[in-house]
Each structure stands twice: as structure tokens, then as C-alpha cells.
């Protein structure tokens, strides 16, 4: 069970207020999509959740505990680009998380533990349709394949929360439908909570169990940096989850 609670949270960089007075409660196994104009703090919100930015004021709690000040294995991330390791093959990329968590000193698994990890990775590889590319390097994959691998790479660590920062933004529109099916499948398999930033409204309503809209409620034309954005709409979408289950 993962509960994310945000209470009266503000974030500012110097005098520039990016987020103001954000209040949220997200229950377990939700698929939260985050939309809003550019510069409205969507990515900043995600970075705070990831642990690479800290709130300036207020609280940001996961299961009642404040966020760790750095990224950790309970929160996976898929960026738009650059989240694969170019020197590792597809299989090695997928194994990496298991090897980090299973071998503190060498970061590599051997023997029976390696075989078990390989088995898990192979199943996941099949689920994302990359079983024939196991020995390839990321540079040899298409953009869509890279993103599928990057998602699987995070999912294999079974994070409580998966963060997606415009993961399909750089992809060919023709393959986004496949990607949507894949992410919903993995979301249901792993019972995690997903936060996904997107600029595609249709996508946000298609995938989400809840849509958050970030926007500025107050604007001072003389000092545009004085007011930040907040969650202006928090829209729960009913019946979605059962539809996915079919």
C-alpha cells in the first residue's frame, strides 16, 4: 500500500515561485497523469518526488514518511531520453537493478543467483517484446524500443512508485498506442503507483485513474515570477481500472 500525501507545499528558486500551496492525497495503485502548460511546475513536482529537488515549505510524505533527499529504489524513473546505459546490452541494462540490489560490493551476480535474475529478466524482456534484441546495445534500438527497455529496467526493481517524465514525447505517434498498452500491463502486473508527466491531454485521460492539472491561479503582469502554479484540477476518473482489467 502506497500513500502519497502533499500538504501546503511550496517550491521556489530564489524569488521565483514555481509551485505554491500544493495539497494532494494519492491512494494506492493509482495512475496519476500530470498535465499543464510548460513552465507550470510539472517537472519540478516530479523532481521533488524523485528526490533531486526539495520542497521549500510544506510536507511531502510517502506512507507518512518525508521524502528521502535523494533518488532511491522505491521510486523508479523513466526520462524522455538518456536513461539507458550505452555501454550495456539490453539484457545487461535490464539486469543492472537486480545486480545493484543483490551484490553491494561488485554490483554483479554470479552462479545460481545470476541464473534466477536472468530468468526474471527474460520473462520481462518477453513482456516488452525485446527478447530478440537481448544482445544489442541501446544505440542499436529504435526510440520506442529504448523507452520500453527503460520502463522495464525500472519495473524489474519493483518500485512502489514509478515516475514517467514525458516518456513518449519523443516517439513516433504511430507507436504510442502500443506503449500505452504496455505501460498499463506493467502497472497492473506490479501494483505500483504511477506519476506521469505528459503534454498530451488525450493521453492523460486515456491512461490515468486521476488527472492533475497544474496551472497558475494568480498572475501579476508586473512580476510574473511572484506567483507559482498549483493543482487547479484534480480529476478522478471512474471505471477506468475495471476497463483495463478486461
Amino acid at each position, binding site marked *: 500500500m502506497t500513500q502519497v500525501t502533499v500538504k501546503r507545499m511550496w517550491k521556489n528558486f530564489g524569488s521565483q515561485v514555481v509551485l505554491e500551496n500544493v495539497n494532494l492525497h494519492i491512494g494506492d495503485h493509482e495512475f496519476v497523469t500530470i498535465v499543464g502548460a510548460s513552465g507550470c511546475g510539472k517537472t519540478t513536482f516530479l523532481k521533488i518526488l*524523485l528526490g*533531486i529537488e526539495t520542497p521549500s515549505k510544506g510536507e511531502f510524505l510517502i506512507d507518512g514518511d518525508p521524502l528521502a533527499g*535523494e*533518488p*532511491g*529504489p522505491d*521510486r*523508479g*524513473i523513466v*526520462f524522455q*531520453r*538518456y*536513461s*539507458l*546505459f*550505452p*555501454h*550495456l546490452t539490453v539484457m545487461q541494462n535490464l539486469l*543492472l*537493478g537486480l*545486480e*545493484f*540490489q543483490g551484490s*553491494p*560490493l*561488485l*554490483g*554483479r551476480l554470479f552462479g545460481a543467483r545470476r541464473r534466477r535474475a536472468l530468468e526474471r529478466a527474460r520473462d520481462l524482456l518477453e513482456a516488452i517484446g525485446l527478447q530478440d534484441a537481448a544482445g544489442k*546495445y541501446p*544505440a542499436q534500438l529504435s526510440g520506442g524500443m529504448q523507452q520500453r527497455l*527503460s520502463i522495464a*529496467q*525500472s519495473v524489474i*526493481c519493483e*518500485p512502489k512508485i514509478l515516475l514517467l517524465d514525458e516518456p513518449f514525447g519523443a516517439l513516433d505517434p504511430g507507436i504510442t498506442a502500443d506503449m500505452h498498452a504496455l505501460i498499463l500491463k506493467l502497472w497492473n502486473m506490479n501494483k505500483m503507483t504511477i506519476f506521469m508527466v505528459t503534454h498530451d491531454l488525450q493521453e492523460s485521460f486515456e491512461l490515468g485513474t486521476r488527472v492533475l492539472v497544474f496551472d497558475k491561479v494568480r498572475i501579476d503582469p508586473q512580476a510574473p515570477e511572484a506567483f507559482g502554479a498549483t493543482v487547479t484540477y484534480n480529476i478522478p476518473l471512474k471505471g477506468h481500472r475495471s476497463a483495463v482489467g478486461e
Partner: protein
Amino acid sequence: MRRLINLSPNRAGALTLSVLPFVLVVAAYLFYSSARNAANPGDKLLPLPATIAATIHQYAFEEDERSGEVLLWKDTASSLERLLAALAVSAVVGLSLGLAIGVLPYLRATLAPFVAALSLIPPLAILPILFIVVGLGEAAKVTLIIIGVTPVIVRDLAFRTAELPGEQLIKAQTLGASSWQLILRVVLPQLWPRLIDAMRMSLGSAWLFLIAAEAIASTEGLGYRIFLVRRYLAMDVILPYVAWITLLAFTMDWLLRLLRAKAFGWAGPGA
């Protein structure tokens, strides 16, 4: 007429063109050397190919009358020994320090400006200090090369480390990596090909420092020999030695490039 920037030679043409400057230099040498020798058979400045060949034979295949050793091989062995020892130390120090400075902000804050300052000291200017401190032996020569080459490699690798996309390091942390694991599995493997690039770039200055050190204080070595026979205007020794040094440097560069391509195919072709 198409633009010049769009005109390129085919393979055979490119090969011919690449050989052309070499042929021109050799031809010019042959022409002037025979002209000078026709005017003065005792000319030492541009010796004839036959003279050079005889000298090469003498240095490379005959034992020296005084030492009983074959000079070219003895010089080559001692020079390469110094060069490779220094390069090995520079590579190890450069990689570990560069990586650490690139990855750990505290170490970067402490050492980056210091290394930047170090790399600006002209190594030859502190050669006298080395001679005073570590004496005139092998240590001084090897140390000179290390001092000349290492700061550059450290800085280069620190920059290359910092160039790795931040997304990668964050992703690794979300996969549960500790700092150590991240260095071992993410940063270090990606630095190997960059270390090879840095070594290739430093080869030129490494040879420069080697020859400078040998010219000043040595009893054997390629640089020592060149500066020794300079007193006798022995161009028939100097020219083959220079060509030999160039060939050695070229071979080392080529081997490093080959290693990079074979061992780190994922990194794409190097420069």
C-alpha cells in the same frame, strides 16, 4: 560546378592523395641531397640514401665498438621503458583521480582548481627541481613525463565524467546503486574508451618530455642519441632516428585506436 565542400575523392583517389605529400617530401629530399652531394661529396647536411642506409645498418644490426651493444635497440628499449612506465602511472592516476573529481562534488571542489593550476606549470621549467630532488637517474625522466601528462589526463577525464548525462546517474540511483556501485558499473566502464582517447592525445607531449629529459641527462635513449650525434652534424643518424621515433609513436597511437575499436565497440569509432 558543384561547391567545393561537396566534392570528395573516391577510395582510390583518397589513398593516392594521402600518399602524395609523403612522396613529395621524399622526392624533394632526394633532389636536394643529390644536388648538394654533386657540389660537395663531403656534405653532411643532406646525406645520400646510400649513406643513410649504411648508417642504419651500422646502428641497427652491428654491435657498437665501444659498448659491444647494438645501439638502436638499446636506445629504443630504454626510451620505451621510460615512456611506458610513465604512461602507465599517468593512466592509473589520471583515471582514478579524474573519475573521483568528476563524480564526487566534495573532491571536485577541493581538487579541480588545484589540478587546473598544476596543469599550467610548464613541466620543463621544473625539470631542474626534479634533477635536484630525485637526482639524474631514471626516476627524474619518468617523473618529468608523469608530471607533464597526468594533470591533462585528470582534467580531461574529470570533464568526460561530468559530461555523462545526469539522467543516467539518477536512473542508476533509482535502481538502488550506491556511490561505489555507480562508479563501478556506470561511470568507470564508460570512461575506459575516453581514457584511451586521452592517452592518444598525450602521446605527443609524452614523447616531447622524454626526449627533452634524455637530451639533458642520460647515457642512452633515442633522445640522448640524437643530441649526442648533433655535435658531429650526423644527419645520417638523426634523420633515421627521427623517422623511427615517429614510427613508434604512430604505432602506439594505432594500437590504442585498435584497442578502443575492439574492446569498446559500443562507444562508436574514436577520432
